């Protein structure tokens, strides 16, 4: 398949669109709101996935989608019914298909046998059996857990796992799809020279259907001729008298003598399309009668195949052209207005006439024209779309970033001027700033996608989890049209899934408990997304049992996350559920347990420059809130001065800023300076020391401390000279332009043209500790 690899990206892009569509249709199906088109659309999606998979040799994907497709085909034909049980299997099969596609795309194939249980269930349905239990299936596997489980990389499933149907179909596809047939002469030359000429005698008599399907004997002869030396002898004995000729019937047959070393299958292949529309016999040359002897058409057998094809075959009048008008003068070629040459049926077999030409067609009949206009008008009703490569959009985003920087630079210069004398300039600059902001917003909105793509997956996730833990859940979603940066949407899916599973598994009570607590049996899960002041706020709330701070604290103590004498505030206690390894549920549930819970969510969200927090009322429910930036290209930063340098700390990571009072800071052996803040001990990092800045303030009492939170939830105090203000900064990758620097996430350009580093708090902490440990050693 060389040369087609470059279409892989297109394929996977298309797959994700297809799978998304399929999801919507499957949900319609499960909710009973399916139309007759629904199954068809699902079938086509699986079918297209399979088609492309075959082209790229993704055999595992082909196998599974083939089975999946078979069942869907039977459903759309009406031979299998889409019962609720069957739909449940389809939903799970769709999950597996997603996994396999993602695996092929990312090169991390799911473990061998991942699809087996579902494939069996599909096969059972195909065989007309009731769906088999698929509890062991990985359909509800924890997506996030996948990141942590030791991934096994196993080659595609073994052939013996294939059911014979699939194997047969694949063998057939190979027969028709994969085997290239070499046509070069070398191959013929290489073969041992036979004693008698090797070859075949082919008797070929087309029936009318052959022409009706636009097959053309001449072209078949041309192809045969490539295999060797061809002699063509027409047989016109069946040709009736002129008056009895039916223009659409077939009267002529041929005997072809082909001297070739090619195998019989190659000859059969040439006749592949017409074998059911003709009388065909293929016999080896030595056993067959000599073609010359059977040639009884009264025409000489021409030795030169080229001429045979040109002179003898062409005039044959079996071309299924429109019925000839009998009033036409016989023997006269009728040339239509569109340049098409018709061969009148009355031409004699020996007459030499040109083949119908493939001249471009003239404009069509008026009625067809009208139809076309109608369709075009209908298509124009929808907003026209244009598909643009992401790299193009990103280039524009980048350039807009540059403009934002230049604009800030310009503003700084202009502000140095006396305003009274340059009021026009000030006004113009003001205007430029407004336009730049609006340009930036609009460009960012190109990258924006509605949250719908995530939200539409929620109903069935909720349904599946609820079924599994035997709870009743009603899902409310708000704000599915809220638009978020494409990257954010993509990377939000996993954390959100995890939070939803958590909320059902841990948050909501079972029907029994809810009744006892005076609530309705059905719990409510609400997922909302909205844009608030340049940020996206996503909330997942439940009306379940709420989080008990006492239990959380007990657990945290047990896990050693809190010292026995520490008394953290309720807020700090709540925050502990985001600590690595924390789990409040005794039995590790197969859904959301595994000890990789909210800490992973927090890390994912922080990677996106966001924050996650929780508030909860015991007995009333919990709300998890994610706050995310609208875009990753621009971030809110706190500008801090360290000596002569300016650094930027992401606002999202800053917990609080303070000027230390005398006695707040203690020097601990081996830990350096620590800050005591409301009973908590916080390590301090002096940026001046880290970056070896000689003029930076080293006395923490004269400095400012920003308490920041690292990804693992631990806090450190960053000591800086002063805070210079908060502003939006354009993120420029350092890694792409230079190389990764520990502790530095990216860079930006300030209004005065200076480059400032945007710090990576987590790495900074690690780096600082590492350096300190090294210094101690």
């Amino acid at each position, binding site marked *: 398949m060389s040369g087609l690899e470059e279409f892989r990206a297109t394929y996977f892009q298309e797959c994700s669109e297809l799978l998304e569509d399929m999801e919507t249709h499957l949900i319609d199906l499960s909710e009973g709101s399916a139309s007759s088109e629904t199954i068809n659309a699902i079938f086509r999606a699986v079918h297209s996935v399979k088609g492309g998979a075959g082209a790229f040799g993704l055999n595992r994907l082909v196998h599974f989608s083939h089975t999946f497709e078979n069942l869907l085909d039977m459903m759309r034909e009406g031979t299998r019914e889409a019962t609720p049980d069957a739909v449940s299997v389809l939903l799970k099969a769709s999950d597996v298909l997603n996994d396999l596609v993602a695996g092929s795309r990312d090169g991390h194939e799911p473990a061998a046998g991942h699809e087996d249980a579902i494939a069996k269930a599909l096969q059972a349905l195909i065989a007309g059996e009731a769906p088999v239990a698929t509890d062991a299936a990985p359909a509800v596997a924890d997506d996030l857990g996948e990141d942590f489980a030791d991934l096994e990389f196993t080659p595609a499933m073994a052939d013996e796992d294939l059911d014979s149907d699939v194997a047969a179909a694949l063998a057939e*596809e190979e027969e028709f799809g994969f085997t290239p047939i070499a046509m070069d002469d070398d191959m013929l030359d290489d073969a041992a020279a036979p004693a008698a000429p090797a070859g075949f005698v082919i008797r070929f008599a087309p029936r009318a259907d052959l022409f009706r399907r636009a097959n053309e004997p001449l072209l078949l002869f041309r192809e045969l001729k490539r295999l060797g030396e061809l002699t063509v002898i027409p047989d016109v004995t069946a040709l009736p008298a002129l008056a009895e000729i039916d223009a659409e019937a077939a009267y002529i047959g041929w005997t072809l003598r082909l001297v070739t070393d090619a195998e019989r299958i190659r000859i059969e292949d040439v006749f592949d*399309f017409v074998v059911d529309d003709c009388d065909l016999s293929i016999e080896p040359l030595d056993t067959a009668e000599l073609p010359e002897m059977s040639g009884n058409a009264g025409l000489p057998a021409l030795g030169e195949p080229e001429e045979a094809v040109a002179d003898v075959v062409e005039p044959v009048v079996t071309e299924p052209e429109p019925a000839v008008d009998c009033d036409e003068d016989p023997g006269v070629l009728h040339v239509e207005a569109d340049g098409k040459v018709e061969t009148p049926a009355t031409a004699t077999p020996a007459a030499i006439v040109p083949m119908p030409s*493939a001249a471009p067609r003239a404009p069509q009949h008026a009625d*067809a024209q009208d139809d076309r206009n109608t369709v075009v008008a209908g298509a124009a009703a929808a907003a026209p779309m244009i598909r643009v490569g992401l790299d193009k959009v990103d280039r524009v985003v980048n350039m807009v970033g540059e403009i934002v920087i230049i604009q800030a630079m310009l503003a700084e210069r202009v502000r140095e001027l006396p305003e009274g004398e340059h009021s026009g300039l000030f006004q113009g600059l003001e205007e430029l700033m407004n336009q730049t902001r609006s340009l930036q917003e609009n460009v960012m909105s190109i990258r924006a996608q509605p949250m719908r793509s995530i939200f539409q997956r929620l109903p069935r996730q909720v349904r599946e989890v609820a079924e599994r833990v035997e709870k009743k859940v009603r899902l409310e979603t708000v704000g599915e049209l809220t638009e978020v940066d494409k990257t954010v949407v993509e990377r939000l899916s996993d954390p959100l899934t995890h939070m939803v599973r958590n909320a059902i598994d841990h948050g909501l009570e079972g029907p029994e408990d809810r009744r006892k607590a005076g609530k309705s049996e059905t719990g409510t899960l609400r997922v909302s997304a909205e844009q608030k002041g340049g940020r996206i706020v996503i909330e997942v709330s439940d009306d379940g049992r709420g989080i008990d701070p006492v239990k959380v604290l007990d657990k945290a103590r047990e896990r050693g996350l809190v010292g026995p004498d520490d008394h953290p505030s309720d807020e700090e206690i709540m925050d502990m559920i985001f600590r690595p390894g924390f789990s409040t549920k005794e039995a590790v549930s197969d859904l959301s347990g595994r000890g990789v819970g909210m800490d992973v969510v927090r890390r994912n969200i922080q990677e996106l420059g966001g924050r996650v927090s929780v508030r909860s009322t015991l007995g009333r429910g919990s709300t998890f809130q994610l706050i995310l930036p609208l875009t990753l290209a621009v971030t809110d930063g706190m500008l801090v001065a360290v000596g002569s340098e300016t650094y930027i700390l992401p606002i999202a990571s800053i917990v609080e800023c303070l000027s230390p009072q005398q006695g707040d800071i203690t020097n601990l052996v081996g830990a350096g300076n620590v800050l005591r803040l409301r009973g908590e001990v916080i390590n301090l990092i002096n940026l001046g020391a880290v970056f070896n800045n000689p003029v930076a303030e080293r006395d923490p009492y004269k400095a400012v401390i920003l308490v920041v939170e690292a990804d693992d939830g631990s806090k450190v105090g960053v000591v800086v000279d002063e805070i210079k203000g908060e502003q939006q900064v354009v993120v420029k990758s350092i890694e792409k332009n230079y190389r990764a620097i520990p502790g530095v996430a990216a860079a930006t350009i300030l209004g005065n043209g200076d480059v400032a580093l945007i710090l990576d708090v987590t790495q900074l902490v690690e780096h600082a500790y590492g350096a300190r440990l090294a210094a101690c050693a």
Partner: protein
Amino acid sequence: MKRILTVDDSRTMRDMLLHTLTAAGYEVVQAIDGEDGVRVLDEQGFDVIITDINMPKMDGYGFIEYCRRDDGYRSTPILVLTTETSREKRERAREAGATGWIVKPFDPQRLTEIIERVAR
């Protein structure tokens, strides 16, 4: 230059056909389903038509039948490009008037050979 119409709802397949056929020296016009194909048919002539079977709006069978009813395309070769391997579906396409078939995934060389077999 011979002109080929490809009718397929899958972008991947359309792009691969475009790439393969253009490389083989054909001019290619794309349609995204049968209905779109019908629209394009009326705008320009084609020497060969390659169509998928499973498509929304108008499927391959319907599209082939349409072509065969149109005097201008009665004798234009139509190849069915499909993953369908069942005899029955191929037969249905033949009934509708398909000239031949190419089973996906196609090999580029094989594809051009097959087109040569049917293109006048």
